[in-house]
């Protein structure tokens, strides 16, 4: 019982990591990871939406007719996303400003809808919570890592703290769209090597 929950939880962290292994939810992954802080904030916002919608959907799954389930899931997800958006605007205005458009776009993050369809609609609440936490944290650490790499190379800092001195000439390309694609491509390649050997 407990072993099953731990497996559900661990699954998203590495084996089926949404970014490095499943390669879903790419839009926010690429767009907001220009700094470490943005990556972390986006990860937490997504984790929250994923967790709340998996709880609600696995609870009421029997009440939703199967041919209308996708629109229903999207509606539930959109509600939680609006909540997160207003919450961030009210209490963390600077984070809300830097994530801007990509908070509402959590609605169409394939990761969230995908987990409802693949997991929450078939499994009981406690297992869905374990799955949401694992997937959400897996998403969060991957975003934070990507943000840290891009911020370090592109601005010489991590979490806004200047680490490299003035001698370092920042590779501005890393914080631009092109750098996002290339660094994620290389990271996924590295993860492929690690998982094949491990």
């Amino acid at each position: 019982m407990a072993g099953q929950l731990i497996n559900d939880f661990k699954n998203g962290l590495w084996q089926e990591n949404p970014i490095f292994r499943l390669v879903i939810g790419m839009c926010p992954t690429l767009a907001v990871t220009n700094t470490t802080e943005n990556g972390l904030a986006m990860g937490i916002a997504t984790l929250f939406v994923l967790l709340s919608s998996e709880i609600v959907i696995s609870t009421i799954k029997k009440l939703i007719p199967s041919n209308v389930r996708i629109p229903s899931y999207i509606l539930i997800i959109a509600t939680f996303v609006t909540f997160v958006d207003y919450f961030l605007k009210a209490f963390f205005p600077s984070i809300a400003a830097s994530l801007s458009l990509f908070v509402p776009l959590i609605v169409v993050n394939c990761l969230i809808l995908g987990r409802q369809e693949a997991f929450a609609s078939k499994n009981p609440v406690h297992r869905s919570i374990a799955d949401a936490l694992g997937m959400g944290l897996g998403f969060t650490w991957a975003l934070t890592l990507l943000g840290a790499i891009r911020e370090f190379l592109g601005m010489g800092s991590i979490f806004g703290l200047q680490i490299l001195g003035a001698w370092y000439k920042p590779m501005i390309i890393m914080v631009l769209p092109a750098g996002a694609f290339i660094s994620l491509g290389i990271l996924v390649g590295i993860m492929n090597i690690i998982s094949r050997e491990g």
Partner: protein
Amino acid sequence: MEQFSQVLLLFVSTVLINNFILVRFLGICPFLGVSKQVETAFSMGLATTFVMTLTAASTWLINTFILEAFNLPFLQYVSFIIVIASLVQFVEMFIRKTSPVLYKALGIFLPLITTNCAILGLALLIPLNGYNFISSVVFGFGAGVGFTLAIVLMAGLREGLQFGDVPESLKGVPITLIIAGIMAMAFMGFSGLISM
């Protein structure tokens, strides 16, 4: 005349300078998933352009005459996603009844379009940029054309790549992302094209 050139500028800048995929990072999922063959990529682009143009028109109307008129900004995300989902459903039914040939080509892509973040992103950008009705439609159409351009170019490159000697660990998604990065650099060259 003045207005016409404004609209034309908006179109060109939406397609090339602020390309939805390569500059704004919207619509990455289909860009990576449906770019293996030029033919399917083009069909996907066509279906997306069609839905985008309709989405632009209908979200402008809803935002102006319902959400703003009754001061309901908190329903923006929920109502936009409903509009997009029903629009996609409607387009699917319409095409199935009127043109079986087109349905065969586009049918399987249509359900995927609902969760294409380029569509919702487009809907959200319209009120944010304060476009009027005509500009919104042109913006939607331009976004679709830009999307088609990027996905078809990528598919062309990936078709050629089949004969290339790609390192084992970079096969599939990683190499596609790296190519997209190089394409994004190339598109940066357009940024000086228009100075309004």
